[in-house]
């Protein structure tokens, strides 16, 4: 029997804000335990929530990037349960009125574009972080209250590869939009996957399992692939798939049972009485839409249509937003788009990789790189010299200064070169004779002497050209 795989994904994404969703406590990562909190984050008696404007803006950006319908009337609800990482004993979320719904994104799988629908995007707050020793659990409330959006897809994906492409596309988009730093390994983007299979042609859903907290895109695919084969085996052996929560085990590359789902938990959702509905200003929403950062797809199109880059180059650039941002800065100062992409993608990345530096630590000034590229094109430095210059430019130096300091400036003044040519020809009578006799090799030797005389600074092309003209005159 052939089976069809059905996958839906829930993604929790920490928003890039200074303060928390419902308190002015600082958002942080890696600080001392319980040092980035205030009374609200600790759920102290008598505290009330206050909504973070930037968090709302970032949620709106996510909605806009994913073509969601936006509800300008914000409403919040309480999700009630007891746990040590949940300070208030309830989480403030948007159960009944998500900020965005009915969106979609497009993914590319095997050169085909597929639309994946989003059910909803809603805002909520994160829980505290717990560390487990052999005997106890240690709670750090720094993360408690951090703004989150939850992005819920429709069950539109049909393979692990599609799921991975979906997560990749969303991750890239949210990063470009400045919504989140999307670090899956640090937990700022967390992925829960629902997987079920059904006989091909069936339109009812099979029983699904949920795989929690997948910390990389490749694990998303691996976990799904394993889970699908596990479910197939069960069904083919006449067994049934149980509704359960599983986790991906890195070591064995399998999914492991966490808990069975016995009926659904009743979270007793009800409207949060302490937050009146907030009506967002239409003009504000419009201005966010207007100033929405460029999406990767838009950028790719620009690279190919306007800059004439290849599909491969364009894709390589946008896959790394920092690199792409850098490239965009470079091409503000040069119109050598192709050359600039090579220097950015190949040379710059090679240096950073070699020195094991991240892009955040990059000190190369885009304007400098652009200048260097322009100098090459204008013939002020040779491509060979450029390599030497680049070694300094990458350290943050101005190429003009480098050239000056190293005395590398290419000699491109025809009058100066003519003087050199004349000087060389005057002292090489034999070479002129050889040339006249058809020995082309003589030219090479003459050029070599001109270069030597100019200490390598003469523009070889120009020197060659003037030399030929002068030889003919002799």
């Amino acid at each position, binding site marked *: 029997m052939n089976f069809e795989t059905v996958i839906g994904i829930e993604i929790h994404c920490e928003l890039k804000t200074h303060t928390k969703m419902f308190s002015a406590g600082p958002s942080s990562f890696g600080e001392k335990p319980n040092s980035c909190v205030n009374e609200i984050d600790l759920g102290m008696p008598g505290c009330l929530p206050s909504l973070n404007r930037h968090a709302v803006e970032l949620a709106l950006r996510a909605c806009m990037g994913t073509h969601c319908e936006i509800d300008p009337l914000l409403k919040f609800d309480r999700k009630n349960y007891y746990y040590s990482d949940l300070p208030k004993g309830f989480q403030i979320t948007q159960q009944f009125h998500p900020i965005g719904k009915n969106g979609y994104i497009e993914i590319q799988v095997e050169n085909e574009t597929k639309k994946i629908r989003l059910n909803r995007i809603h805002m909520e707050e994160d829980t505290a972080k717990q560390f*487990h020793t052999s005997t106890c659990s240690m709670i750090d*409330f720094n993360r408690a209250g951090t703004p989150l959006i939850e992005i819920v897809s429709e069950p539109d994906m049909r393979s692990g590869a599609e799921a991975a492409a979906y997560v990749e596309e969303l991750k890239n988009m949210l990063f470009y939009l400045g919504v989140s730093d999307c670090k899956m390994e640090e937990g700022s983007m967390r992925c829960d996957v629902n997987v079920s299979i059904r006989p091909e042609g069936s339109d009812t859903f099979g029983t699904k399992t949920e795989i929690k907290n997948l910390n990389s895109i490749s694990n998303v695919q691996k976990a799904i692939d394993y889970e699908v084969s596990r479910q197939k085996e069960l069904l083919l052996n006449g067994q049934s798939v149980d509704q359960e929560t599983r986790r991906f085990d890195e070591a064995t590359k399998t999914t492991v049972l966490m808990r069975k789902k016995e009926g659904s938990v009743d979270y007793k959702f009800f409207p949060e009485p302490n937050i009146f509905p907030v*009506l967002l200003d239409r003009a504000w929403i419009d201005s966010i839409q207007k100033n929405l950062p460029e999406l990767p797809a838009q950028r790719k199109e620009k690279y190919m249509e306007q800059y004439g880059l290849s599909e491969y180059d364009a894709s390589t650039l946008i896959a790394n937003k920092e690199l792409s941002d850098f490239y965009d800065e470079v091409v503000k100062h040069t119109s050598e788009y192709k050359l600039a992409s090579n220097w950015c993608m190949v040379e710059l990345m090679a240096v950073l990789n070699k020195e094991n530096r991240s892009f955040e630590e990059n000190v190369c000034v885009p304007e400098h790189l652009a200048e260097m590229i322009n100098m090459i094109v204008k013939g002020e430095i040779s491509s060979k010299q450029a390599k030497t210059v680049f070694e300094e430019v990458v350290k943050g130096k101005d190429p003009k200064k480098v050239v000056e300091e190293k005395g590398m400036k290419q000699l491109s003044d025809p009058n100066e070169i003519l003087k050199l040519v004349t000087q060389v020809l005057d002292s090489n009578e034999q070479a002129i004779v050889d040339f006249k006799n058809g020995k082309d090799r003589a030219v090479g030797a003459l050029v070599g002497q001109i270069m030597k005389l100019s200490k390598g600074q003469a523009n070889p092309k120009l020197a060659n050209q003037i030399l030929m003209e002068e030889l003919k005159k002799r």
Partner: protein
Amino acid sequence: MEKFSKEMWKKLANQVMFDLSDQECEELSQEFEIYLKQLDLLNKINTENVEEMVYPFDNPTSYIRDDEHVDVISQEDAMKNVPFKNENYVIVPKVVK
């Protein structure tokens, strides 16, 4: 609506993280009878097309806090009331999620 056994009350209580004694369950059963009778009063009121009143006033606000101002307390204050702590962590018996 259903009538509740002692066990049912205890289960309900445990869901909101406390116990009830047998006597408390007994009292609750009696009070619940009255509760149900009072619900009949509620059901006499026609609420067709009436929206739930969640807040005393319905006009929405437009205030949202700016993300700039940070309001933090000291680690010492944060830990001051914690009954069981170690190295500035709040400690509970090991929880397995």
